[in-house]
């Protein structure tokens, strides 16, 4: 028997507002990918087909370098954001400690994605590092004073600092340049996970003086399963995946030519259209926030009102459970997110909101709408129309 189709999943009815989870591929990326899928050639081979494949990879590297303010040789292709974060944190921490055994501390913001927090937890448990989390304010911005205190407690013992460019849940943009400024004084390398930021806000690797930066394909209109770690050439990084040494000897594995071509096309388009995107999507987001506020006056907008991703609207609806709201909206074809979920699909109170000082209850009452390149005013209208009755209903479900 053929699998049935979820009646509610007919695409024409879907209002997709979960672009921070993943965003549709842009035509330029889809074209680049399909163009290369049917070509033979291992980019490491020495013959003509190999050279043609290699040329695509190197041109992709150059495209990415040109728009993210780095040198092509600093772009290390990976399987995506999680691998890039793991490579940066473990690779830098290990090599820095190897060079000087006193470097046993890692500092990272308390609101990092699990792709950063979990490797740090592992480095603490299995590899003997001390991990300190940098506090954030009520808007989710790292407290630079706290970072300074943590560093100055013993500057020589810090192996690496990691602060994300923009938060995936509440959309708060972090003061990365200031973080780099603080660390520079002590010669401490800084990594930043920028998967949510590229294409949404200006991101410049050399411009802010970063040592390593994570970027991924599927958040910018490219395919799944491809990303990059941008890392300074003079920064030693211990390899995690050993083999043919394809990517600068710190990342092995046959190079995925079509994915990389599509990734580069998406990054280039996203960065080049960033200003226009931010203005258009920011205006839609503001309309969404205003519309929701009008219908649900006691709604709380989480995150920094100014330093914020243009597509992010993260709310707490007092008296509601986020997963109940999500289900009610989903039934009307409106797709959003409660934030982090474990593999069984059970929503957990977000560590980001808890770090921002929200109560467990308010954290569970939250819902993220994230707009992206395909969002329209009709999407916003649909949410504003639906949210009132859904909130009312979800509140009744909580009262019981």
């Amino acid at each position, binding site marked *: *028997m053929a*699998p*049935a*189709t*979820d*009646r*509610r999943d007919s695409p024409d009815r879907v209002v997709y507002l979960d672009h921070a989870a993943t965003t549709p591929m842009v035509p330029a990326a889809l074209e680049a990918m399909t163009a290369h899928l049917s070509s033979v050639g291992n980019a490491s081979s020495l013959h003509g087909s190999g050279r043609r494949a290699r040329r695509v990879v190197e041109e992709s590297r150059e495209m990415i370098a040109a728009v993210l303010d780095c040198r092509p040789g600093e772009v290390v292709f990976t399987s995506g954001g999680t691998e890039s974060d793991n490579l940066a944190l473990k690779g830098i921490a290990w090599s820095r400690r190897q060079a000087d055994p006193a470097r046993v501390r890692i500092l990272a913001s308390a609101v990092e994605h699990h792709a950063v927090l979990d490797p740090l937890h592992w480095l603490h448990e299995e590899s003997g590092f001390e991990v300190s989390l940098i506090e954030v304010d009520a808007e989710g911005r790292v407290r630079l004073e706290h970072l300074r205190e943590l560093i100055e407690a013993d500057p020589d013992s810090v192996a690496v600092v990691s602060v994300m460019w923009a938060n995936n849940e509440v959309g708060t943009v972090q003061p990365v340049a200031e973080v780099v400024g603080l660390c520079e004084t002590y010669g401490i390398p800084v990594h930043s996970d920028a998967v949510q930021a590229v294409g949404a806000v200006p991101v410049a690797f050399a411009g802010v003086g970063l040592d390593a930066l994570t970027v991924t394909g599927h958040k910018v209109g490219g395919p799944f399963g491809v990303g990059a770690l941008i890392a300074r050439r003079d920064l030693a990084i211990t390899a995690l995946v050993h083999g043919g040494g394809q990517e600068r000897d710190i990342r092995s594995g046959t190079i995925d030519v079509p994915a990389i071509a599509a990734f580069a096309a998406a990054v280039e388009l996203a960065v080049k259209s960033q200003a226009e995107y931010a203005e258009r999507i920011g205006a839609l987001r503001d309309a969404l926030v205003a519309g929701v506020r009008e219908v649900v006056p006691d709604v709380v907008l989480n995150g920094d009102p100014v330093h914020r991703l243009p597509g992010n609207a993260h709310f707490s609806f007092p008296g509601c459970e986020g*997963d*109940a709201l999500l*289900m*009610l909206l*989903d*039934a009307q074809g409106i797709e959003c997110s409660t934030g982090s979920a*474990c*593999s*069984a*699909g*059970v*929503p*957990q109170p977000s560590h980001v909101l808890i770090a921002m000082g929200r109560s467990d209850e308010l954290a569970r009452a939250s819902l993220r709408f994230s707009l992206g390149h395909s969002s329209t005013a009709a999407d916003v209208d649909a949410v504003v129309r639906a949210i009132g009755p859904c909130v009312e*209903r*979800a509140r*009744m*479900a909580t*009262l*019981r």
Partner: protein
Amino acid sequence: MSRLKVLAAMSGGVDSAVAAARAAEAGHDVTGVHLALSRNPASYRSGARGCCTIEDSNDARRAADMIGIPFYVWDMSDRFHEDVVEDFMAEYAAGRTPNPCLRCNEKIKFAAVLDRARALGFDAVATGHYATTRTGADGLVELHRAGDHAKDQSYVLGVLTQEQLAHSLFPLGDTPKPEVRAEAARRGLLVADKPDSHDICFVADGDNAGWLKEKLGERQPNTSGEFVTEAGEVVGTHEGTVAFTIGQRRGLHLGRPAPDGKPRFVLDIEPVSGTVTVGPREHLAVDGLTGIRPLWAGTLPQRGVSLECTVQLRAHGDEHRALLLVDEDGDGVDLTLLDPAFGIAPGQAAVIYDGTRVVGSATISATRRTAA
């Protein structure tokens, strides 16, 4: 039949998957929900809850995919722990023998889940229980045994009230289990030959006694005590009464056989002194019992009058002919058994039937032993 908005509770097993499929096929607007009940600290990410049920959750999700219904996971682990697991531990600590499945139906599936579902706009909850409902002459929904007596689960539904029954669907009804499995296979549901679950869901390895000892720890009423005969003779020692239930024969590890060579059974448990009384099977015979916390499926039976009925005293247990007497104030029942029952422990549920119809239930508070 009118089209209802139905929440199908999907455990990840074959029964609830087929129940959900049938509800959808009947034209209802069905949403599948897997209840994350466990908060096993041994799950792979410490602090995460519900993760130990990833396998079952995935099975339920894949079934929902095949049926073509939306699917969600609801975290009920706090409520489940509070209302079912804690109660289970407290009852054993008090020397009683609870049935957590009835408790879960009473407090979680047809209470917390049904209430939340109704608040969210659902009309009914559908489960994979083997039982049937029909509307009686008085307009009330009646709960009846499933025809396949071996699989009948009306016993664990004996705690449902009229309000709950009126918003419950049991799409498996009378279908024999092999047919349900065959139907699952026909529908392409991968759980078609998944083994039945038998043990208590939160006791992973089925070792009740070990689980209770570990979880109760210092809260155990005792960690050692004596086995005595009815005559008061000490015949052995044990490591805590929570390991025992009335009627138990296995695992007593009594060194010396009884003088008559017959097997010995647990007759009584005294948690304060730690004394476990043992004796021959015939001394387990019970001809009457009292029950508390009665719950009625429909109209309350007449009070203060002896009514003929049958009663079932454990899951898949025999039916006994009995006389039911409801207290004048309605908060207790007395059941006189017309044929004796063996190994009946306080804490178990007595589910009362009129023919195949469930009348109600009560929690056994005391038993009367047949005069030897």
